[in-house]
């Protein structure tokens, strides 16, 4: 790792404290001009970065940069290498990602970086909102980037990514549905206040427990302390000491946030994000669905 680890007391309780940085830490690194550190902003709103961003930060957009423009998939190794190189990121670069809405999209970007095995990628605890709330500097100046050479690496889709068949084979093991209660029980197919993104049926994957993603965030957008997260997931979601966990939402973005919590803050060994999520499951032919507020049981067929 290039940049030092943030020694904040709060982070030491997490399984992988090196995955989070505080706003104070980031400020210090920026002031000290720490080499080979790139700050990436990733938001839901494609123009938010342009209204003002952390000085020196580059923008990566989940739609226009990380998704394949044609297939429902992520960009491939070549496109990823080109993208990161153009943002001045090398394979060894320390990347700090931050964004709007409790780091929702920042966590998604971090997860995609992780598909390519980028080693040192961290989240700014509290994200854009906390940085602004603390009156720290924002600028609309264009960031001057020195392009870097990023190697073409193959995406690894087996370790932290789950497909529909993986979920079917996983039924009976811990499964977390991170959508809103109304999406979970089947009374609606999209998040409240969000556009219809096409699922033909409502409900949830049998046995999935419902822990809406933002449950992991404190009111200021930072992650809740370790003890609280343990109470929510280890006990509340009944994951306990399970080996394998899968999280899903509607298109895999909200569940990236929960994936980050389970993988990096609570230290579960095998956590996968099912990015097909409800827009695939809720439209697939002959997959089992449970409606109502109860998780339901594993279908015996």
């Amino acid at each position, binding site marked *: 790792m290039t940049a030092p680890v943030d020694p904040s007391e709060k982070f030491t309780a997490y399984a992988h404290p090196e995955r989070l940085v505080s706003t104070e830490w980031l400020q210090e690194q920026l002031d000290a001009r720490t080499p080979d550190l790139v700050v990436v902003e990733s938001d*839901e*709103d*494609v*123009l*938010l970065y*342009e*209204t003002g961003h952390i000085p020196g930060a580059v923008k990566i*957009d989940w*739609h*226009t940069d990380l*998704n394949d423009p044609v297939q429902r998939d992520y960009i491939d190794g070549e496109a990823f290498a080109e993208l990161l190189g153009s943002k001045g990121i090398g394979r060894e670069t320390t990347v700090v990602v931050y964004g*709007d809405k409790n780091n929702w999209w920042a966590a998604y970007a971090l997860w995609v970086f992780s598909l390519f095995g980028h080693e040192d990628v961290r989240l700014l605890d509290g994200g854009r909102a906390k940085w602004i709330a603390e009156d720290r500097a924002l600028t609309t100046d264009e960031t001057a980037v020195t392009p870097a050479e990023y190697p073409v690496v193959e995406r690894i889709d087996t370790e932290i990514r789950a497909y529909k068949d993986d979920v079917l084979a996983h039924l009976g093991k811990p499964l977390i549905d991170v959508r809103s209660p109304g999406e979970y029980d089947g009374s609606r197919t999209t998040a409240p*206040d*969000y*556009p*219809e*993104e096409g699922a033909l049926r409502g409900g949830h994957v049998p046995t999935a427990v419902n822990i809406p993603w933002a449950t992991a965030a404190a009111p200021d957008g930072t992650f809740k302390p370790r003890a609280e997260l343990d109470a929510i997931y280890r006990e509340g979601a009944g994951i306990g000491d399970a080996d394998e966990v899968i999280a899903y939402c509607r298109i895999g973005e909200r569940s990236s946030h929960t994936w980050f919590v389970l993988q990096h803050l609570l230290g579960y060994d095998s956590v996968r994000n099912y990015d097909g999520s409800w827009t695939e499951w809720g439209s697939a032919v002959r997959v089992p669905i449970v409606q109502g507020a109860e998780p339901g049981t594993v279908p015996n067929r």
Partner: protein
Amino acid sequence: MNDATLPATLAEIRDDFLALGQKDRLQLLLEFSNELPALPERLQGHEDELERVEECQSPVFITVTVGEDGDAPDVVRMHATAPREAPTTRGFASILAQGLSGLTAAQVLAVPADYPLTIGLSEAVSPLRIRGMVGMLGRVQRQVQAAVS
């Protein structure tokens, strides 16, 4: 698209976007975003009485008047409000407010439903996001239809 039915204001906005590269199109959208006029005073504080655009990811509210505020009887005016943290949505609303306000009801109703898909933003902001603007235009047209029938 049949330019015969597209009002000059909207055609001009479209041509302005199409004349730019992808990156500059975002900047122009940001300019529109910053230009979204505040709600008229009588509507301020009454946002909940306006129609919410469900197709947009961020809370945006619109309302349409026909022949009010000293306008000729069939002249349309569109008002919208969206938070500063949602510049893309504000930009969409601003394009429509600027492009539609001052037109007659018949002209607004004749605007092709796919106008937002023709202004060259699908690549810059993504097709999914541009659907929010399609939804917004549809709601404006429904409100105008309701006001004149």
